């Protein structure tokens, strides 16, 4: 393994119209890290994630994903790049015209080298991982509950066995037991496959039990980024408030 970081952001600034969302953000995510990205609602976490994926160009600054520019014009490079990562969008973004099974099978079929039996086993396996059964595979996305949409989207993100997982609020809308199972699942995968995970989350339990590193977005800047214990000790109004709320909840 080379020592190059999986994700590297340099001097990212983002502006929508006249409004600045990010100012001069630098960030590195190394292989094997589980980075929790936190920040108030509307602080630009989803936007930052979209930029990492190359779906949105920052106003200024450069992004490196596996050492490459995700907005790279070459289709082939982008394709190989995107096969190495799995994404869970905040609202699921399931293909509404495809059944749950076909949604998860879609990225596998796109590889064009797996046979149907192999794909079926893999899809069933992923469904099982997120605690859904093969029967659920026949449902259409419109027939799922909110939490089930999240879980199917996670199963789809895991379909290609990616090295890098980008998760936008994976546990929002899940009951406590399910979010605990999610934590266990990602933990196991992370151990077995040495996954790198970037997750946006407001859930303190997920954060404290899964994240090795934390990055905090506030006032348009990255106010802290580093190992979890260090960040939790940083003296910043937002960070204090964020973790104090948790202390209150645990009592």
């Amino acid at each position, binding site marked *: 393994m080379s020592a190059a970081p999986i994700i590297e952001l340099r001097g990212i600034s983002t502006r929508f119209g006249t409004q600045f969302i990010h100012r001069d953000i630098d960030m590195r995510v190394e292989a094997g890290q589980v980075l929790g990205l936190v920040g108030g609602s509307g602080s630009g976490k989803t936007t930052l994630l979209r930029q990492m994926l190359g779906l949105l160009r920052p106003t200024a600054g450069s992004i490196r994903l596996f050492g490459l520019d995700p907005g790279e014009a070459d289709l082939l490079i982008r394709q190989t790049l995107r096969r*190495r990562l799995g994404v869970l969008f905040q609202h699921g973004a399931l293909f*509404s*015209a495809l059944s749950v099974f076909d949604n998860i099978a879609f990225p596998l079929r796109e*590889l064009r080298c*797996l046979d149907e039996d192999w794909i079926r*086993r893999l899809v069933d*396996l992923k469904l099982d991982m997120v605690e859904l059964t093969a029967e659920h595979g026949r449902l259409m*996305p*419109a027939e799922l509950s909110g939490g089930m949409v999240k879980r199917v989207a996670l199963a789809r993100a895991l379909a290609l*066995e990616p090295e890098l997982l980008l998760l936008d609020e994976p546990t929002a809308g899940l009951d406590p037991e399910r979010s605990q199972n999610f934590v266990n699942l990602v933990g196991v995968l992370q151990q077995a496959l040495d996954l790198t995970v970037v997750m946006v989350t407001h859930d303190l339990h997920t954060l404290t039990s899964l994240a090795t590193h934390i990055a905090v977005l506030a006032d348009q800047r990255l106010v802290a980024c580093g190992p979890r214990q260090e960040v939790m000790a940083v003296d910043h109004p937002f960070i204090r408030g964020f973790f104090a709320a948790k202390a209150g909840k645990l009592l």
Partner: protein
Amino acid sequence: MIDVPRLQIESGRVVLTGQWTLAAIMPELSDLQQRLAAADGAKAWDLSAVSRLDSAAAVLLWRAWQQAWPDELNISAVQRLVLERVASQPATSPQLPVRRHHLVAALGSLLLRALGNLRGMIVLLGQLLLDLAHLLRHPADMPWRELSATIYKSGAQALPVTALVGFLIGVTIAYLSALQLRSLGADLFIVNILGISIIRELGPVLVAVLVAGRSGSAMTAQIGVMRLTEEIDALATMGVSRSLRVVLPKILGLTVAMPLIVLWTSAIALLGGMVAAMLQLDLSLLYFVDNLPRAVPVANLYIGLGKGVVFGFVIALIACHFGLRVKPDSESLSANTTRAVVTAITAVILVDAVFAILTRHIGVPSL
């Protein structure tokens, strides 16, 4: 960077090394599958040197083992977990019963669907009448904003394109008939031909086809997306009637706007015809304008406008009906939009035929 997955058979033991992940095995898939097939039946497997094992590779191994654990397996605990997950899956999942298509059944279901659509439209029509009755009693509930928005979007904004198409059609018809008429020495009849055909028939039908494609599809798509994103449900929870606020202004608006566009398009088409006649037959514009009222009884104009009203109503009704039938997925949205446009144009032609029969004695100049 990635260490390549390898498989060796060493004195009866199958030794796997490298990284067994989907990304790594993909480039060498056929080679690996051959080697796995060659190792078939081996009793001892050594996976201790495998650096990573993901579930795709685990499925590959499990299938190579004929879905049973080998007698001797050397593997790390984490990777055994991955294999155990695969092993716990049933070999085959229950298959969906395959639906057979019979010709008779297909025809029957087609007929039932058509009847269902007809019924839906009648229900929508009834709802519309109820809403109108409600509006008579509570005039303050009239959705003026939505109504004017519909008139603007499907009326005012359609003016340029209908004018362009109308002008070109007028030029084409005048040009073609001028050739025929000249050979018969009946140049002056161009006024009759253009006047009657455009005002009575072509103007309304042309506009109807354009509007069905333009505004009809837009209405279906808009209502469909509102259903997709549960906006219709949100309206309902706020006590806003979807038929009063969404459907009624569209139908009413298009019914009002259509005859106006028909008038406009017919006028421009006549202008195009006049210009062509002037260039081809040296017929002065003044002569054309002077003779138009004499050649074309005014009843034709009323028939044309009446067609506009009915066509507008039919197009909007069909568009709204199919919009409300959209199921929350993108496939159904596209299917229903297509159906709306096709049905609307077919219905317009059908209604036009009925008009032709009913008005066959009206407005035809007697020579």
